[in-house]
């Protein structure tokens, strides 16, 4: 009952944040003008601003935010750790190495699928590295070891990116840097289609794994005694969550902490049943990033703040509180 109410509330909020995202921006439009443009009326300029710039941008924010929150909730269940998140684990970093490599080598012209595929390969490489480093300690999934492994792997990827950029042309560097900071400014209908094509089917696949993820969240040994095929669930869920992360990185760059803040908040409201947690995290993540992007556009208007900066300002304090709590246990 409570979950249905929350889903309705989040759905309404999402519609509201999309409307706000279309209504506000560096060019002033009245609500009437924005609504007219949405329905195909109004002036040509306002139609262009609303339909070609603001609407795809807001939808992209919703898709990427929802996807990152979904990926975060999945990693948290698999690692039994509320601090696990694509950015913290270095997965976003890995994805961005793949993407920067594609930009630097000029391979993006080969096809629109190049960037997400390279980002996905980078994300998988990052996961493999983090696990290698974390399990080499012999203490398995200790929070501290895992975070440290994430930090080390992320540092390695930053170095890779710095190296690639140092030997790239100035134009590539500029677009790559903007993009590493995380921004939805490059949104167009093509990137919306791309994000939707990866995120939505992958999200449905994760939803189908909600029940086994419930079991994984209480421990792998117990999960297999209760009937979960632990190896398969781990493999599929890690790959799918990485794919979602990679798609997000490919279209919007590195946006941290969405996957940390959102599932945490949703869990406080509904508990840990992933059948509710996953879809509600998707909705809440969509709302969160749409609103964060609105803030990114308005805080220093007419200049833009990278949305990754906004999510980090919100996310870091929450991360620190969670870290204190999990180290106190």
């Amino acid at each position, binding site marked *: 009952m409570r979950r249905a109410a929350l889903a309705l509330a989040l759905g309404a909020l999402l519609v509201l944040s999309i409307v706000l995202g279309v209504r506000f921006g560096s060019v002033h439009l009245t609500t009437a003008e924005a609504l007219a443009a949405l329905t195909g009326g109004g002036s040509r300029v306002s139609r262009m601003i609303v339909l070609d710039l603001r609407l795809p941008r807001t939808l992209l924010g919703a898709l990427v935010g929802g996807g990152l929150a979904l990926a975060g909730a999945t990693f948290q269940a698999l690692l039994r750790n509320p601090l696990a998140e694509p950015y913290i684990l270095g997965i976003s970093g890995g994805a961005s190495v793949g993407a920067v490599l594609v930009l630097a080598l000029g391979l993006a012209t080969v096809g629109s699928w190049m960037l997400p595929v390279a980002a996905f390969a980078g994300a998988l490489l990052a996961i493999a590295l983090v696990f290698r480093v974390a399990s080499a300690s012999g203490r398995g999934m200790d929070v501290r070891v895992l975070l440290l492994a994430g930090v080390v792997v992320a540092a390695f990827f930053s170095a890779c990116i710095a190296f690639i950029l140092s030997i790239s042309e100035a134009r590539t560097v500029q677009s790559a840097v903007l993009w590493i900071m995380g921004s939805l400014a490059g949104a167009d209908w093509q990137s919306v289609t791309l994000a939707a094509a990866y995120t939505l089917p992958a999200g449905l696949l994760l939803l*189908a794994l909600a029940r086994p993820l419930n079991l994984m969240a*209480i*421990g792998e040994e*117990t999960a*297999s*005694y209760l009937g979960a*095929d632990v190896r398969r669930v781990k493999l599929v869920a890690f790959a799918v969550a990485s794919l979602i992360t990679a798609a997000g990185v490919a279209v919007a760059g590195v946006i941290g902490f969405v996957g940390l803040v959102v599932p945490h908040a949703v*869990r406080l409201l509904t508990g840990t049943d992933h059948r509710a947690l996953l879809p509600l995290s998707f909705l809440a993540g969509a709302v969160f990033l749409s609103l964060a992007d609105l803030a990114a556009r308005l805080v220093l208007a007419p200049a833009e703040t990278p949305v990754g900066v906004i999510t980090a300002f919100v996310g870091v304090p929450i991360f620190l509180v969670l870290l204190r709590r999990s180290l106190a246990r």
Partner: protein
Amino acid sequence: MTFETKDLVVRYPGTASPVLDGVTMTVPEGALYAVLGPNGSGKSTLLKALMGVIPVAAGSALVGGRPASSWKRREMARAVGAVAQSETLTFPLTVRELVAMGRYAHQGALSAESPHDRRAIDAALEACDVTELAERDATTLSGGELQRVRIARALAQEPSALVLDEPTASLDIRHEMAILELLEHSARRGITVLLITHGLDLAARYADRMLLLDRGRVAAEGAPGKVLDARTLSDVYGWPVAVTDDHVTGVPRVIPLGRTTGSRTPVPPS
């Protein structure tokens, strides 16, 4: 449901000597079977081999006459309820949600809780005396409460066997006895119970048969009166013990002795 191993050998990668080295044992249908042995003697490894979650290097581990590794996980979960040694709850879950996970192997991917599922959950909560805790956050339970909830989850699986790894460790006598009586009651209803424990005296009272492991090998197997032999136990545990018949319960009772004269415990006659 029966459990059986023949010359079972289990190795962990990177270790020189096997953790289990030629273990042969048989748990008959409906028995309450205790597995005893010092820390590190291979008790938990035996449980994992029987549950099919670790590879068998040589010999066999059979569940219901079939190799443990040939069981599908869901199939195994419908037949055997297992309670691992420990479990860390990271995220908030109600007791009922935790026990309801016992129904996983009986449900389809998308199906909701059936009336049968609900009955099984309620009965399991009732049997373990945790019905009052159903809506509590499981991360706030005491050790004894959480143990009973975990056993309730295994019972909710409606299994024909229960396998438990030190379920009464760190529990006070009331909670320890409640769990042993529950297991005894389950065995009487035909559920085979395999219990790993350090409690020699209580195992002597409740178990039909027992297995004593010593560094991965079988030190003794059979009825409690046979396994609980003073010399065998002293050898296996590396500490002198005496065994008497308890005048209250009439079953063997193990008394650890002292090694130095002048301590508060008697030393064995040399």
